[in-house]
């Protein structure tokens, strides 16, 4: 039992960090590939939430029960509070500046060319 436990922890933390790294990668690809600014913001927000949670959980498992774990937890909470708020503020600012989401255009039957100005 005592010999298997570190292995399980290692496996869990590495998997979590891999998931986190993949989320960040997908977020990055999404920012480059998505059609309009709202979907790009949505892709970028994946880094703030999924990426943060998975990466930091993995790091916390790796650090064990130590001061570093608490610091990592504090940073994670801070990022989880600020990231989505920044995403909201950005999307709100874009909406107030008059940019129409591509999806809304599509459903209105307007011409949708996959891009907005």
């Amino acid at each position, binding site marked *: 039992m005592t010999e298997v436990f570190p292995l399980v922890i290692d496996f869990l933390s590495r998997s979590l960090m891999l998931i986190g790294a993949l989320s960040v990668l997908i977020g990055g690809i999404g920012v480059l590939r998505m059609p309009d600014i709202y979907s790009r913001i949505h892709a970028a927000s994946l880094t703030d939430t999924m990426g943060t949670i998975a990466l930091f959980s993995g790091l916390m498992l790796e650090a064990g029960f130590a001061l570093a774990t608490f610091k990592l937890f504090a940073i994670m909470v801070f990022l989880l*509070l*600020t990231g989505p708020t920044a995403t909201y*503020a950005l999307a709100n600012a874009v909406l107030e500046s008059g940019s129409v989401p591509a999806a809304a255009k599509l459903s209105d039957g307007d011409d949708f060319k996959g891009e907005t100005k």
Partner: protein
Amino acid sequence: MTIVFALFLLSLLVITALAIVQTRNLFVAVMLLSIFSLLMAANFFVLDAADVALTEAAVGAGVTTVIFLSALTLISGTEKKAPQAGRGVALIVVTITTLLIIYATFDKPRLGDPEAPVHQHVAPFYIENTYELMGFPNVVTAVLASFRGYDTLGEVFVVFAAAIGVLFILDARTGTGPAYGMPEARGLKHHLIPKAVGGLLVPFVLLFGLYVQFHGEYGPGGGFQAGAIVATAIILYAILEGEKAALRAVPRSVLMALVVGGALLYGLVGVVCMLMGGDFLDYSVLLPDPVVGRQVGIIIIEAGVGMAVCGSLLSIFHAFASRRPSRIDHESV
């Protein structure tokens, strides 16, 4: 691995710098400058300069970005075309300088080389004597506040002079500038989510600022960083609740008192040292035990530095924010 990361960060720095030069949109330029500072902070951290990294992140990426943005609301959002004349001369000067700098790097010692001249001069003395003389481990704080206290005193006076200069130029004598009553002066009150989350964060940012201020002898940090972090917290409050609310929380008179008081406090510690029979800024005479005396002196002058930096950054922010923004080319921003 570290060297790969450092090279990656340095390449990003070059790309960002080129993008800053290229763009004509000043808003984009400000954002890129902020990214540049953040990359620079990461670079400093890779080089194990945690104190400098903290300063760069707090001042460069944080406060200056806000001050640049508030300055941008007063002017047009795009850069004018530079005159074409004299570009050839500029190109020649830049090329020669670049070649000279590249040539100079051939003589540069390798990164972290213990035989390098910079590690042979006074650095061994600082490293060997910090713990013995001051009783705390952070050599950077010891150098900044005690070994080279005159330099830091000079820096505080530079910060002081900068704040006074900006206030003179922007003419922020009145507490009720023309911007009041405009929608911008109300802050983000109608945006519930940023207001709630930001309001939640302000006390923690302030607490972290105090931690950085008073833990500077043991961890990275000190007056400069703490002053900038506290200033960020109050600027965040100003963005959320409007400038008027921030001025109600920390009035201009308090800001002026912080700027003047910080510089005065630093200088007075030096004078008190002289009166007690030591040299100017020789803290060891402050208390019977010279080690404790130095610690007390450093804590007091760090407080002075923090006050001066915080007060200056906030006065500069308010000097920009209390003016009426121009509406001329809002579209291009």
